[in-house]
């Protein structure tokens, strides 16, 4: 089935054309482009029109006020106002619920976007991030996934809030507090559910994990291991197939533990075994050769890697990591984010983290004393 998005931007179609070309794909996704209507009444008419019903999603620019539209009219509202109106109309049942993606220049997001509007959008993409041709296919997958996901959410709500159907997985053994939270969330409009799942489940490790964390927890350096994909194949059963899985590749963490202890029947704990030992065990159990264990960063102590430094991506054990700030409102089933010692001392990936958690600052001072990094005398 081909999904259809409407892309509203005040710039000319010429400027947006490449983005559209890169995102759309015959038989999968088509994108119509249009300028804002120029005034709020006409914009509302558009939302209520029959044509609008045919769209499976919406891409909105944030600042619609910069350039006049084709008819020379300048709009006096933001993409976020439009999104708010659409959410309101959907809530009252006037129109159906659709995914809305914000696509805007970073500078405009910084200037005009009030963070309380975040939940209106399923995805917020800064135009500058589309700085690599490789990103278009994954973004297309996410757009398609959002459309499929919205339909699935609606279906599950109609089936008495069927969570098993939503996640395509037996949730019995999952964290009880997660289940409790999900049962509350599913009562909400689709975009609240979507937001919750994307932000708290797909974008944060915990219940689900991404490929890099999976490799880290198995102790495998996947860049060096040609047999890595074979490991993934063996683990296929625990691949996440639930809502939005088309756009986000994830695995069930409970599945990993289950697989390790019960299917591979390894007695040593996944959490507290050194990477090199885990890789030896895996090679033996899976009858694979080309698997290379991860190596420890220079200043790390532990080799039982569990997470990746959010700045540099280096695999670390949480004992060798320093917590970053802004993680107070975490759900208990979520993993916390750390940076490695090197990253804390000499940050290289600051775009991915802001500051250390205040509680970690004394550690940093000690580390600076421990590794003074003095210039050799000339």
């Amino acid at each position, binding site marked *: 089935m081909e999904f259809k998005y409407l892309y509203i931007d005040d710039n000319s179609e010429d400027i947006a054309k490449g983005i559209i070309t*890169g995102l759309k794909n015959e038989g999968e996704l088509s994108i119509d482009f249009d300028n804002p209507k120029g005034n709020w009444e006409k914009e509302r008419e558009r939302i209520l029109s029959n044509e609008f019903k045919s769209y499976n999603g919406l891409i909105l620019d944030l600042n619609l006020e910069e350039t006049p539209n084709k008819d020379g009219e300048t709009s006096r509202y933001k993409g976020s106002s439009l999104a708010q109106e659409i959410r309101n109309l959907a809530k009252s049942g006037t129109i159906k619920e659709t995914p809305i993606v914000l696509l805007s220049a970073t500078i405009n997001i910084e200037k005009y976007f009030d963070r309380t509007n975040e939940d209106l959008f399923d995805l917020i993409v800064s135009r500058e991030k589309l700085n690599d041709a490789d990103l278009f296919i994954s973004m297309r997958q996410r757009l398609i996934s959002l459309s499929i996901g919205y339909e699935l959410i609606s279906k599950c709500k109609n089936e008495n809030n069927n969570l098993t159907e939503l996640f395509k997985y037996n949730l019995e053994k999952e964290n009880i507090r997660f289940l409790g939270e999900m049962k509350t969330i599913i009562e909400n409009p689709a975009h609240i559910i979507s937001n919750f799942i994307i932000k708290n489940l797909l974008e944060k490790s915990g219940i689900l994990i991404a490929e890099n964390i999976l490799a880290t927890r198995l102790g495998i350096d996947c860049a060096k291991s040609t047999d890595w994909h074979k490991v993934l194949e063996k683990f296929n059963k625990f691949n996440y197939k639930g809502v939005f899985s088309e756009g986000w590749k994830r695995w069930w963490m409970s599945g990993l533990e289950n697989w390790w202890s019960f299917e591979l029947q390894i007695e040593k704990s996944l959490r507290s075994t050194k990477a090199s030992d885990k890789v030896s065990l895996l090679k033996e159990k899976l009858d694979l050769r080309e698997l290379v264990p991860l190596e420890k960063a220079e200043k790390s102590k532990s080799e039982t890697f569990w997470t990746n430094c959010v700045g540099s991506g280096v695999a670390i054990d949480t004992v060798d990591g320093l917590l970053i700030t802004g993680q107070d409102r975490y759900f208990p089933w979520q993993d916390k984010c750390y940076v490695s010692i090197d990253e804390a001392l000499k940050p290289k990936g600051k775009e991915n983290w802001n500051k250390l958690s205040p509680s970690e600052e004394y550690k940093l001072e000690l580390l600076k004393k421990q590794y003074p*990094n003095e210039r050799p005398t000339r």
Partner: protein
Amino acid sequence: MEENSHNSISFSVDAGLIDRLGRELVGRAETAVSELVKNAYDADAKNVEVNFIDSLWSGGSLEIVDDGLGMTYDQLKSGFMTISSTDKVHNPLSIRYNRSRAGKKGIGRFATQRLGKRLIIITQTLESEQAIKLTIDWDKYTVDQDISSIANQIEYLPKEKPEGTTLIIKDLREGWSEAAIKRIYRYVSDLFQPDYLSDNSHSLHIAKQNDESFKVKFSKINEGVSFEIASPQKMLFDKNIAVVEGFIDSVGDGFVGIRSERLALDDYAVPIEKSKDENKFQVIRNVHFKAYYFIYNRVEYYTNISKLELSNIQKLAHESSGIRLYRNGFRVLPYGEPKDDWLGLDIRYSGESGQTNIPFNNNNLFGFVEIIDKEGLLFQETASREGLIENAAFEELVDFLQKSLVTARGRIAEKITLIRKGKLDSKEDFEEDTEDTTDKKTIEEEFEELDKEVHNDSAKEAIKGIKEKYYEVIEELSMLRILASLGLTIGEFTHEIIQFTPSINGFISKLYESNENDLNSIKILDDLKRTFANFTSYTSYFNATVSENTSREIKPILITDVVDFFVKNIKEDLDRQNTELLVESYGYDLYTTPMHISEWSSVLYNLYTNSKKAIKRSGNAGKMKIITGEENDKIYFELHDNGDGIPNENKNRVFNAFFTTSTPAGFDAPLDEKLTGTGLGLKIIRDIVEAYRGTVKIINPEIGYNTCFRIDVPKAEKAELEEYGV
């Protein structure tokens, strides 16, 4: 010529000389053609046709047909065929019209050789019964042959016309585009004075461009179809803001007049005096000049001109503005050539233009000076024929012209200031963007007055010092103004450019998905993708640094971040230059006192560019090293390179404004070229660094390097880090 007798020996000339003379005497093809046109003038022709036949590519022909006196066999033999003949030396005036002969001695024949491989001359005189046709095949004139052993065929043909010469140059050595033909047409036209500037010149039959007595027509003939090349664009002189016209009469009184319709200006016969005590000019008489004045980019100052016309004039000004000098009707070079500033206008006014908005450079003027000096008593050409000897007459001429133009400028300034104030008419409101300069005394005038009032020598010395410093600052300011506006433009430009980045990436992505890609097209795509990624890294760098400028926000800067970002950006450039760059940093949290990120960006770029140039000059395999760290509560940044080093005597001077070891860009070079190597780079660095109580110096480099620039700026204080939330 081989003789058995060994009792005497004579010089002989190798035929290869012709080729050498043709190429070395007549460097440019333009000169070659113009020499041939001059020859027609010297032969008293009234009409010359210059036809380029199928000449877009090499191998075509060029015909120069005149209705001059023609040549007899004897004249051909003793004149044209005799190298270094003395005819023009002996007879400086032409036979029929007494024209002052224009052609350079004996260059014509070499000009034809320079232009094409074969020459056919068909010539006839009034008296002759037949026309003579001479064919010369220049290719026969190869080295290792005696020049006199090569015979050139002569034929006799029925006469085509009463008199005149036709030169046909076959097998042209180069192709002639229409633009090239136009260029040469303009070149030829400029040879002659544009107009009779005085009654005298009229009665004396002085050559001029629109002279009915000598007409040149250029045509391009392709496959038998002829197009006349339009005469070089008339300079649209009548579109001027003002016309300045002046003269010195036969008794030495000088006058200038300034006329402008738009400025309601009609000042007639303003006297120009030699000096306060002496009204009359002593030496020169009968000088006339006329100059057309333009201000570019200010359509509002004109009555009837479009932006396009004005910008066309501005373009023309690049090659043909300035004040030209015509002596007895002929152009005297180099006066008024591009870059020539014989009246010192550029030196005097370039720094000032921004202050007053009455720019008065050579660029703004199209002027012609006529001097009539038939006997060559007042003005003598230098031996090299490059200009006039700077004698008393010449000095008076320059003095008169300068005073006249300054007077004219004053009158124009007065009226334009009124326009800006909206007092001249109410046609439009003009923004008052500059200070009124005409009512107030200028600083120059103040200096002058001060100089008169002060009689104490040391005070005079001090004033002189201040004055020098003042001019230095003015000059620096005007350059900084250019740089600043360039910065804004880059910011704006980058902002526009990045709009397209995601779109282009989208197209690239889509191309990858095509099923029709073969290995070759995938390789091209890979290259495209990589190249575009490099491109994007530049634009995003500028966007991050230059555009942030608009926010003017200062904050503590993590120097290691700045360096990382910078290094990432120049990586490709380093690879291209084959230069290795090591980066080291010592200590942690190298936050500087609050600064603007773009300031560091310009510091790093300037230092990097200098190092690159030094490495290039040295010819070494490039090596650079950046070291950052903390010392004595300062954050330091060092850039080492293994370039050619800085000699001790220059170490203190490199930070001075305008000190540069780079060869300056030519006057005609594009702006960007002029802005590199301005000698302001290090000065700007010093200004930035010192503004934050920092220092920049040249220190002893580490082993393996030849130069090291070190910058120290205060480290951010704890309170500052907290205040800025770092």
